[in-house]
C-alpha cells in the first residue's frame, strides 16, 4: 500500500524528536543549574527590558504572508498539472497559462499599489 510509506515518516518523526530530546535530557542530568534573577532576565543588550515585548508589527509582514499563502495554494494546482502534463494536450497548457496570468495579475496589482516595497 502507498500509505504505508508514511509509517516510516511517523517513525522518523519519533526518531527526530527523540534525537532532539535525548541530549536535552542529558543536559538536565549533567549541566550545572544555578538560577539567579539577573541570569533569567531577557537579554536585551544588558539594558533593562523596556515596555511590552509582544509589540505590534507593521502591516508589511502580513502582505508578504498573504502573497505567500496565495502562491502556495497555487503550487498545489501547479504540481498535479506538471505531473500530468505529458499525457495531456495543448489545452492543458492554455488552461495553465490562463491560471498563471490570473495570479500574475494579482502580483502585478500588489506591485502597482506599492505594497511590495519594504518601507
Amino acid at each position, binding site marked *: 500500500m502507498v500509505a504505508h510509506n508514511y509509517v516510516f515518516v511517523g517513525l522518523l518523526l519519533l526518531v527526530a524528536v527523540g534525537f532532539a530530546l535525548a541530549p536535552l535530557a542529558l543536559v538536565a542530568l549533567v549541566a550545572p543549574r544555578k538560577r539567579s534573577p539577573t541570569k533569567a532576565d531577557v537579554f536585551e543588550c544588558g539594558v533593562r527590558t523596556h515596555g511590552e515585548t509582544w509589540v505590534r508589527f507593521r502591516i508589511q509582514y*502580513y502582505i508578504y504572508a498573504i502573497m505567500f*499563502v*496565495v502562491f502556495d495554494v497555487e503550487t*498545489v494546482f501547479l504540481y498535479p498539472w506538471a505531473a500530468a502534463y505529458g499525457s495531456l494536450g495543448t489545452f492543458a497548457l492554455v488552461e495553465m497559462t490562463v491560471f498563471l496570468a490570473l495570479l500574475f495579475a494579482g502580483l502585478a496589482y500588489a506591485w502597482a499599489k506599492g505594497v511590495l516595497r519594504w518601507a
Partner: protein
Amino acid sequence: MANDIPLNWFLYFSAAAFAIGLTGVLLRRNAIAVLMAIEIMLNAANVNLVAFWRYGTPAAGAGPMPGVILALLVVTVAAAEVAVGIGLVLLCYRRWRAVDVDRYDTLSG
C-alpha cells in the same frame, strides 16, 4: 480488509470536530480565534469528503476522485478565506483599535 476502521468512526470524529468548531465560533470574542474555529469546521468537512470518497461506491460517471478534488477546492477556499478574513480584522483593528467581534457594533446604532 478484515480489521478496517468503520466509516462511522471518521464521521463521528468529523462531527465532533465540527461541533467543537461551532462552539468556538460562538464562544470566542477575538476575531482571529473565530477564524481559527472556522478552520476547524472546514477541516472536519474535508475529513468527511475524503472518508466518503474512500468508503463509498461511486455513482456512474463520477470520476475517480470527486471527494479529493472537492477537498482540494475546500482547502483553496479556506486559504483565501483566512487571507481576506485577517485583512478585514486588520482593517477593523485600525478603525476601532479592537479585535473583539462584540465591539464591531457600529451598525447596531
